[in-house]
């Protein structure tokens, strides 16, 4: 580790990877307020042999819903050594279809196996009439959607026996029917269901650029006391058919400076939170992600110091 940077996970005498000094906060969920990293099969050997120095691990639930095999060996090894953030991508909470009960049962079995510190899902839909689109598709912010998503969150929390963190989306289009503001919509869902929120600062940057609102004001208004985890990732910039720049939530490149600035703002307002570095495409070796993990850790340390001086 670069000695000039703040530690990603404090050294421990009892186990080298289990971070100590992870103070519990008032936030929902039990992940430590440290830098975390997603477990990718490409990195399986690194996780199995010399687990990376991170404060928590994250898995995509749908990648570990098999009957058996070596992926469970990876999962069990990760769960034994790190607090786990279980992240669902296919529950389709925003769908007009009823929740897929088979899928929910598989999710429940996974929760029982790995006992995650937190479970998160998206304000989005991905299935319709039984067809799975494998994308996080947008919902209208209106009253029927609010009722439907709240029911789906209730049903999920009951089935899993734990509260979930609901993630703000990145979107490319808006709906004529939307008569709620996105932040208000998320806050109302949290109020109705008791769920926590997951703030993805890259999603804020992407949606703000695509729809012409202020990312900073969005974070300022976000109910940060409900935030149990923060995501940060890279995006791509393209031009749409009208020649207007559009940001794509690609998770395939380094985090943009505007997104780092938004992370700093969110942490200053919210205090230390678990921060996950997301990298799902063009995934490099873990060592190449280390500078970004260290930058997250440095941002968390800055906030802890600021808070300590203020109190």
């Amino acid at each position: 580790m670069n000695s000039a940077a703040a530690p990603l996970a404090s050294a421990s005498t009892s186990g080298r990877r289990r971070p100590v000094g992870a103070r519990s906060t008032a936030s929902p969920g039990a992940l430590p307020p440290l830098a975390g990293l997603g477990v990718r099969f490409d990195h399986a050997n690194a996780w199995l042999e010399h687990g990376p120095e991170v404060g928590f691990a994250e898995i995509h639930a749908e990648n570990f819903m098999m009957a058996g095999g070596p992926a469970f060996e990876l999962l069990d090894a990760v769960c034994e050594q790190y607090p786990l953030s279980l992240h669902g991508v296919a529950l389709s909470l925003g769908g007009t279809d009823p929740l897929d009960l088979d899928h929910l049962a598989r999710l429940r079995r996974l929760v029982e196996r790995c006992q995650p510190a937190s479970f998160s899902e998206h304000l989005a839909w991905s299935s319709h009439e039984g067809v799975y689109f494998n994308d996080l598709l947008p919902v209208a912010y209106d009253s029927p959607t609010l009722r439907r998503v709240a029911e789906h969150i209730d049903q999920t929390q009951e089935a899993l026996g734990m509260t979930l963190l609901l993630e703000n989306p990145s979107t490319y289009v808006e709906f004529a029917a939307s008569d709620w503001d996105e932040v208000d919509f998320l806050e109302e869902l949290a109020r109705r269901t008791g769920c926590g929120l997951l703030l993805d600062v890259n999603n804020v940057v992407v949606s703000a650029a695509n729809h012409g609102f202020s990312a900073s004001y969005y974070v300022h208004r976000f109910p940060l006391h409900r935030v149990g985890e923060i995501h940060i990732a890279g995006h791509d910039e393209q031009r749409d058919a009208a020649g207007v720049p559009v940001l794509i939530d690609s998770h395939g490149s380094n985090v943009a400076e505007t997104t780092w600035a938004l992370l700093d703002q969110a942490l200053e307002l919210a205090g230390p939170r678990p921060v996950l570095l997301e990298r799902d495409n063009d995934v490099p070796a873990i060592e190449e992600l280390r500078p970004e993990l260290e930058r997250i850790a440095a941002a968390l340390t800055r906030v802890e110091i600021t808070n300590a001086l203020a109190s």
Partner: protein
Amino acid sequence: MPSQADFARSLLDPDRAVPPMIVARGNRFDIYRNNVLSSLTSALACTFPVVEKMVGSEYFAALASAFVRETPPTSRILAEYGGVFPLFIGTFPPLADFPYLADVARLEWLRQEAIRSPDDLQRDTPLASIEVEALMERKLVLAPSARLLTSPHPVATLWRLHQDPEPAQPEGWRSERVMIFRQDRGLAHAVLEEPDFVFLATLGTFETLGDALWALQDTDAASRALRLTTNLYQAGALITV
């Protein structure tokens, strides 16, 4: 209320109009169309890497797109998507001159099934300690991960050669029968002669290994089958029940 059905139908159909409830600007709905198609074709490329290598990535993307539009996933687990892709390849008119492609795809699908299949929970007896005599009295079946495939093409050889960045041509072209099974953290193939394949395919219908060997009614065939059985048993491809 906005209709997700409209949105959903337009996603996989490029000729269908953008759903009316969208605040449309700069064809941004196409971003969703691209995301859906590219993520699903990428998922197929993960499951069928040798097919992709054989046809080239550009052709594969077009082939997979045609399949996605005709048969989108119904499972939310991408590793479970593509079970009928081999059938699609086998009946795809432009690929009629490459009949082996569908069987290579079948092999890749069986590998995908095998790596995710249930663990063999009985696998705690030290194999060396099993006496052949004791094994003769036991019923033997395929391990949960084991799959059998028979093809008029050298399907396992083609698969193996395409693990090389510069794949060689197979020497000669003959039918192959292969057993796929999990071993350690990976997968193994056993290429089988026809009598061995038939023996393994029917082994599970006999009450004991002894009965299965007796049914061969030929001493040479029986000793050959016994060697095969003990080897595959030790490799974890066969289990006792």
